[in-house]
């Protein structure tokens, strides 16, 4: 097992190297001049040249690339043109917000999706089965940002149940501790006995998490259903049934355990995709995470920020996929040998 993990991590290196290379050249070769973006349209030629020298843009491309590589290895993505802060620092500040949202969305999607899929498979072709599978098909066919808007329209504006955006009541003057607001709210609750931060964080999280989680939910429900149907048709389930083991136990203990294998894979892949899907949801819900930040960086042609953002998101995506692969071989010993 240890050797397998090591081999997979070593295999990761060329992929990550490719990601960095592609991110660098896509931006370096794109039209537009970072120095011009920084100084504005009316900057003098002398100042432009000075800045280009300072940024190393006057050197040959291959040299710039070497320099960039050597910095990225030390987690240095340069300085954001827009804010003047280190890109690494900005990403570190914003990452907890995105991870919190993605995790909440995934918990919602996995739990609901698995329950729905199992119930649908137990009563195949019943009304519940048809209805939940139709809902799942609709779920994968709609634009996420539209769903988010409709949810804001119904639950925030119409019923006034949830706030329309943000992570915390702005009147609270809240200083984050870890950056994960739920966790921070919980820490404050333990320290000071005041639950209002925790409640506010939770209140703000519900709508974006449900909106972001809907598509993964639909996919997880569909995969769970088909995987359950396959397992429920196998001999050992028939044996269990004929031995008089309660139906409930057979479904949720014997069958679900084996049916979960493909579901775990899907959950992992969807989690990785959620991090990038956040670029849409975060923009709508004014969620101060990496997606919204990256969107504004693209808009402002903030090259170092865009490069850093792409590299970090893709790296996390690749790492999650690796984790899923490894997890899969832990759960299913049959494929471990390969």
């Amino acid at each position, binding site marked *: 097992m240890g050797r397998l993990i090591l081999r997979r991590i070593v295999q990761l290196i060329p*992929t990550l190297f490719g990601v960095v290379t*592609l991110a660098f050249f896509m931006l370096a070769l794109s*039209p537009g001049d970072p120095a011009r973006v920084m100084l504005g349209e009316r900057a003098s030629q002398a100042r432009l040249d000075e800045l280009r020298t300072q940024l190393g843009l006057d050197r040959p491309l291959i040299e710039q690339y070497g320099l960039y590589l050597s910095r990225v290895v030390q987690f240095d993505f340069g300085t954001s043109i827009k804010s003047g802060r280190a890109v690494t620092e900005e990403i570190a500040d914003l990452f907890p917000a995105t991870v919190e949202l993605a995790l909440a969305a995934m918990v919602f999607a996995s739990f609901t999706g698995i329950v729905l899929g199992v119930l649908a498979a137990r009563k195949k072709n019943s009304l519940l089965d048809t209805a939940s599978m139709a809902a799942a*098909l609709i779920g994968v*066919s*709609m*634009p996420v*940002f539209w769903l988010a808007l409709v949810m804001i329209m119904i639950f925030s504006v119409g019923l006034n149940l949830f706030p329309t955006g943000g992570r915390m009541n702005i009147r609270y003057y809240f200083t984050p501790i870890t950056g994960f607001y739920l966790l921070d709210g919980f820490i404050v609750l333990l320290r000071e006995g005041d639950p209002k931060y925790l409640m506010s964080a939770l209140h703000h999280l519900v709508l974006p998490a449900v909106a972001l989680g809907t598509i993964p939910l639909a996919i997880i429900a569909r995969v769970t259903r088909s995987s359950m149907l396959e397992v429920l048709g196998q001999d050992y389930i028939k044996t269990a049934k004929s031995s008089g083991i309660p139906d409930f136990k057979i479904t949720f203990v014997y069958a679900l355990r084996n049916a979960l294998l493909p579901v775990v894979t899907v959950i992992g892949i969807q989690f990785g995709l959620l991090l990038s899907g956040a670029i849409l949801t975060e923009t709508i819900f004014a969620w101060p995470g990496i997606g919204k930040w990256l969107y504004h960086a693209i808009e402002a042609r903030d090259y170092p920020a865009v490069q850093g953002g792409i590299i970090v998101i893709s790296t996390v995506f690749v790492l999650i996929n690796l984790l899923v692969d490894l997890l899969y071989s832990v759960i299913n010993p049959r494929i471990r040998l390969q």
Partner: protein
Amino acid sequence: MAESVSATNELPSIPGDPSPFVRFWTSLRKNNSAMTGLGIIAVFAVVAVFAPALAPYDPLIQIIGDRLTPPLTDGYFLGTDDLGRDMLSRIMYGTRISMIIGVVSVSIGSLVGGLVGMLAGYFGGIFDRITMRIIDIMLAFPYILLTIVIVALLGASLVNAMIAIGISQIPRYARIMRGSVLAEKESDYVLAERSLGAKDGELMFSTILPNTLAPMSVQATLGIGEAILSSAALSFLGLGAQPPTPEWGLMIASSKEFVTSAWWVVTLPGVATLIAVLGFNLLGDGLRDVLDPRLQE
């Protein structure tokens, strides 16, 4: 011997034996999911082609006095938007744009991806290893992120959005094609053609290609739905179609400020998108059931 081997490729037609296409169509017709999807797509296709004849108004004409008219009022079946433009006509013209985007981007993705996959699978060796490495790196970027970055670099426009979506879809077609070619290339009928002196090009494009079309067409159908969603997302972010184009995603984006006042402006373009994508997903699922006998229960 040689004659009987070559016969596996071109079966003599037996009277009463239906052609492969007829057989395919017969089983497709029995598939509810596929037929529903096909029906939806047919309706959208008709609307797309005949939009100028069907739409009651010019999609761009602004009647300021009638702005934000609710549906079913004053002769506006689906109401008007904030500039007094007829929603129904805009959605109808939007169908045109979405269908074109879907077909064009999937054509880019499947032609380039298919060609790469075919060459990589057929020739193998160093070309295979290099291209598959590049495909792996492309797959390391989350799909929507890759699309956004490409279009941001090319410049925001509808055409660039199609190119970006097409490029982002290349990896999946390349992989599927390569997989099918690898599976087919050692088959008896290919070896037979080769032993009869067929050239590489002939083997690739007239012997192997027809047998890879099943998985490719399933993926392409699902790909069109996904392309429509991606283009809506790009327009929503301001990176795709530009105002006043009646593109669905752009219509949703510009309705953001009316969530408090005019539900139809927010809801209807999304419903149109949803139904169109649903049509392609239903057809794709149905095609998969029909074309892949292994999945048939």
